[in-house]
């Protein structure tokens, strides 16, 4: 059957190898606006940053120094620190095409464990804190196990876990608050994240620094390490990732466990922020963190977006909330306008991506 080879070769023989790489020239993006759009298009995580800067400038012009002061601007940072930390946890989960509805519950329960261990059982604060962090991580890992191994939808798993953890939290704490004054006197370490320092009128807290550091570290990990790439791959197409050699179950469990750990840190930061340990806190953390993540441009379908976007997303909401209050909108009007903002911010994002497409 030697003829078969010859047969298929007689036209394929016409191939030669000396061709060049194709090159098309591209004469667009010549105008300044075009350039801005092009840059934003190439770096989608800059879009929320752009919206953020625009919002700050606008409120600055409207409100002057009342808004455009180190005090007000760092206040925003302090106000978003909890949401920012939780949004970091939410981001990594959403990047895997999951969702974590239990973030708020894990956060509060971890803070309650830290507080109750110290005050009810008299365990030294550092040990109690470790226990709180461990509890958060364990709940997250359980979420991950249910998602990865039992193959349940993340929405369901974390919805159920939210109810379970929140109820446990109330049952365990008997809804008792541990007062700020008591903590200050007996276990100030619990309030560590509330510690303040002043840099030229701007007030920073340890919690704010932690939030920023956390997000930058995660951004590095997601972008520059193999594990980070695997997180994206799992969210992009789980089956493909599995086939191309990623241990997707392991990655999922790690991601949910890490989310739990970050939420537990958020619980610690929460004690610093409100001074006290209060089992009724954090009820809005789910919706607020998801809002920050999506305004920040991370796709709920997984695999697309940057965690920096979530930080900007949280800040955008913070800037608008404070800005509107300063402009005199009352609580109900602010609520309404934030609703419009959410839609508008994402519409702007979409528009930028489109025109520069």
């Amino acid at each position, binding site marked *: 059957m030697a003829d078969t080879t010859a047969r298929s070769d007689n036209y394929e023989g016409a191939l030669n190898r000396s061709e060049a790489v194709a090159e098309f020239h591209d004469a667009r993006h010549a105008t300044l606006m075009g350039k801005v759009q092009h840059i934003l298009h190439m770096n989608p995580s800059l879009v929320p940053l752009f919206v953020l800067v625009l919002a700050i400038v606008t409120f600055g012009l409207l409100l002057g120094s009342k808004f455009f002061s180190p005090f007000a601007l760092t206040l925003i940072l302090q106000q978003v620190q909890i949401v920012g930390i939780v949004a970091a946890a939410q981001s990594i989960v959403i990047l895997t095409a999951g969702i974590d509805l239990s973030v708020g519950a894990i956060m509060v329960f971890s803070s309650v464990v830290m507080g109750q261990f110290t005050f009810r059982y008299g365990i030294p604060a550092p040990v109690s804190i470790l226990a709180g962090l461990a509890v958060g991580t364990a709940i997250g890992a359980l979420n991950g196990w249910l998602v990865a191994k039992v193959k349940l939808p993340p929405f369901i798993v974390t919805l159920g876990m939210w109810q379970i953890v929140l109820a446990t939290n109330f049952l365990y704490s008997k809804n008792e608050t541990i007062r700020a004054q008591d903590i200050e006197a007996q276990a100030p370490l619990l309030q560590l994240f509330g510690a303040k320092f002043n840099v030229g009128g701007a007030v920073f807290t340890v919690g704010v620094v932690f939030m920023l550091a956390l997000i930058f570290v995660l951004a590095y990990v997601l972008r520059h390490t193999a594990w980070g790439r695997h997180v994206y791959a799992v969210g992009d197409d789980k089956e493909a990732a599995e086939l191309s050699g990623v241990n997707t179950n392991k990655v999922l469990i790690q991601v949910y466990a890490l989310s739990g750990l970050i939420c537990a840190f958020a619980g610690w930061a929460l004690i610093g922020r409100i*001074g006290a340990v209060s089992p009724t806190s954090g009820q809005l953390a789910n919706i607020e963190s998801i809002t920050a993540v999506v305004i920040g441009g991370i796709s709920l379908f997984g695999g697309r977006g940057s965690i920096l976007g979530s930080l900007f997303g949280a800040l955008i909401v913070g800037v608008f909330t404070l800005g509107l209050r300063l402009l005199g909108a009352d*609580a109900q009007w602010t609520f309404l306008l934030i609703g419009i903002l959410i839609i508008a911010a994402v519409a702007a994002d979409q528009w930028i991506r489109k025109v520069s497409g």
Partner: protein
Amino acid sequence: AAHGGATVCLITKTDTNPFFVKMKEGAQAKAEELGMTLKSFAGKIDGDHETQVQAIETCIADGAKGILLTASDTSSIVPAVQQARDAGILVIALDTPLSPIDAADATFATDNYKAGLLIGQWAKGKMGDAATDAKIATLDLNVSQPTVDVLRNQGFLDGFGVELNNPDVIGDEEDPRLVGSDVTDGNQEGGRRAMENLLAKDPTINVVHTINEPAAAGAYEALKSVGRENDVLVVSVDGGCPGIADVEAGVIGATSQQYPLLMASLGVEAIAKWADEGVKPEPTEGKDFFDTGVALVTDEPVEGVESISVAEGKELCWG
């Protein structure tokens, strides 16, 4: 007696607020004492009306003898209450009167408007002449403005001498002394954020009304962070033990104390009596409900405003 083994239902607005946790404890203790079974229900969030309707239905299905109810929506709940009464169940409103008040067989309640009024009057008296150019912030519950929220807020403003426009709406006053109001969800985190927002709006605020003591504690953290914790007057409502401790520590200037344990145990007793003798409880003289009382707790009494000391408040507190 006939009440032995009978079921009593307790339906609260939520069961996460320590106030209702205590109420449940009071009812539980009394029910055990009288050999009755207590089943407790609660809305999932403040203002969760449907869950309360479901709870009433469940109690009917369960054959309960009586229902103790703190209604989230005082007028919407009326048809459901009527259904229960038609089924021969004694319905007692606790803490919050229904609208109309006679929709329930009896009411054991705090007067929330009065609770607000007392702290308003106290704050006005405490400030003296300075009250005429006070800078007031109110830290309320949430955007849906449930009845307690409105009653306390408006009572406070009334007591402070602010002209109310519509007494059913928060925020329609025109008094220039009002810097603004914000919502707290009744917890520390919300209290802190709301205080920060209003401080950014006007850093000279010097009187703060708070919906409850957790919100007050949160507000205090915000004031502390800008070093104003000592020159701002914070008033609140509830009188839970942590709240009284905060009054003692100077976090809160004065608070209006209520008595949930009392309400609950009185309620359970009334139901036992109803089961035994078919007799309904009588309201307080001259009022259309049984007033379990509200007392202003402070160690800095003001002339013309009745109050009790922190030490007394501690005796009576419920947390």
